[in-house]
């Protein structure tokens, strides 16, 4: 997909219309500087700004992360460019009443996959065409059938190890963690105003970049996203030390899928697995 393709033209026109009509105070989209590999976020405040918007296969980021932020809300209604995967995160934000549907204008993009080489998540994507957006730009893409096993491949590889091997693996992974919290900052669903790691009376999670605190942090991050994570993979992509966070998210997604038939982000009306319960839930493993 080219930056000067039809998707970009339609996107610019749509954004310019929304901004000039005053329907939105800002359009959050992607822009390209020269030949940068990564499309950076653009916050278009008026119709002229809209010309800076692009959509191509360098648009990796999940822009839903900006929606809960107070500085964005202060701009009024927000238009946001979403790929199918990003839309799933918006659905969770709607479900959790973090944003209201009337406060956002969703500009969906048909997407055949992003990244060079293409991101792993795109090979198991079943939302090439976002549904439920206010407007969708770009050429429709064929939706291939997704192999369920493929979807959880990274988790399955680690699951195949013994407990001791897994411990050695994760110990060496978490030992690399520098506690930059990039995984948290980039996650559209980590929107707490005050994160548990910033609470210090009591201090639940040791703050230094040491294995003890890093285990606690990574466990807490994964657990707070259980039944919520939509698998956009941003946490793993931004991790400067390359911890395979996606595998942990996959594992937990699979658990809530297998146990409670729940797949996060498919709609804004779902009930999350930890907010509901059933007397028929499994008692397996309870003494």
């Amino acid at each position: 997909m080219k930056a000067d393709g039809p998707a970009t033209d339609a996107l610019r026109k749509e954004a310019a219309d929304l901004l000039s009509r005053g329907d939105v105070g800002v359009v959050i989209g992607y822009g390209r500087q020269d030949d940068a590999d990564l499309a950076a976020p653009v916050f278009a405040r008026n119709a002229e700004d809209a010309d800076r918007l692009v959509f191509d296969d360098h648009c990796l980021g999940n822009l839903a992360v900006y929606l809960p932020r107070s500085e964005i809300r202060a701009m009024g209604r927000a238009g946001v460019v979403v790929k199918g995967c990003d839309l799933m995160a918006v659905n969770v934000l709607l479900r959790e009443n973090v944003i209201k549907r009337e406060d956002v204008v969703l500009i969906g993009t048909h997407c055949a996959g992003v990244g060079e080489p293409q991101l792993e998540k795109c090979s198991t994507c079943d939302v090439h065409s976002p549904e439920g957006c206010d407007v969708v730009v770009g050429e429709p893409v064929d939706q291939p059938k997704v192999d369920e096993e493929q979807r959880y491949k990274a988790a399955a590889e680690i699951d195949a190890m013994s407990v001791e091997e897994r411990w050695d693996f994760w110990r060496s992974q978490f030992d690399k963690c520098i506690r930059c919290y990039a995984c948290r900052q980039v996650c559209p669903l980590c929107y707490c105003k005050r994160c548990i790691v910033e609470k210090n009376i009591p201090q639940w999670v040791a703050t230094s970049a040491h294995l003890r605190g890093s285990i606690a942090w990574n466990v807490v991050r994964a657990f707070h996203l259980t039944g919520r994570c939509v698998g956009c993979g941003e946490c793993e992509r931004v991790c400067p030390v390359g911890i395979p966070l996606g595998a942990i998210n996959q594992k937990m997604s699979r658990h809530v899928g297998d146990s409670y038939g729940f797949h996060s982000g498919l709609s804004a009306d779902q009930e999350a697995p930890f907010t509901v319960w059933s007397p028929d839930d499994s008692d397996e493993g309870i003494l």
Partner: protein
Amino acid sequence: MSEEKPKKDGQDKWEPRIIAFLCNWCSYAGADLAGMSRFGYPAPIRVIKVPCSGRVDPLFVLRSFEQGADMVLVSGCHPGDCHYTSGNYHARRKLLAFRELLTFLGIDPRRFKISWVSAAEGGKWSSLVAEVTEEARALGPYKEFPRSVSEGVSDEG
């Protein structure tokens, strides 16, 4: 807290530290009944009373391991008996998912127990503690879990 103290004669055997989070309404009362009924149970278990098994944040479990627990037990009311109607149902979903996460990360799931013990089950409490204590002894000290921030310059002696 309970670091190695000078051993008295006949007490030089290693004993595990087991932290048990018991709900106020069922399991704690069950443990109390065990005591009142003179059902003995092994001493390595340290009981912490919580209002409900639903109160147990996974961080309590992690923190216990960090502070030197060799096993953690969470016990609440049987499904259907929760004093707050649904606390234990929420706990069941959360804690089983948490165990799934621990297992995936290589933290031995045998060191994290969940049980239902009612206020009338003094006998069950007694035999449950005997059983898990035996297992904890067999598993041995949980040395793998990093307990000090400056591991290698360990404060564990």
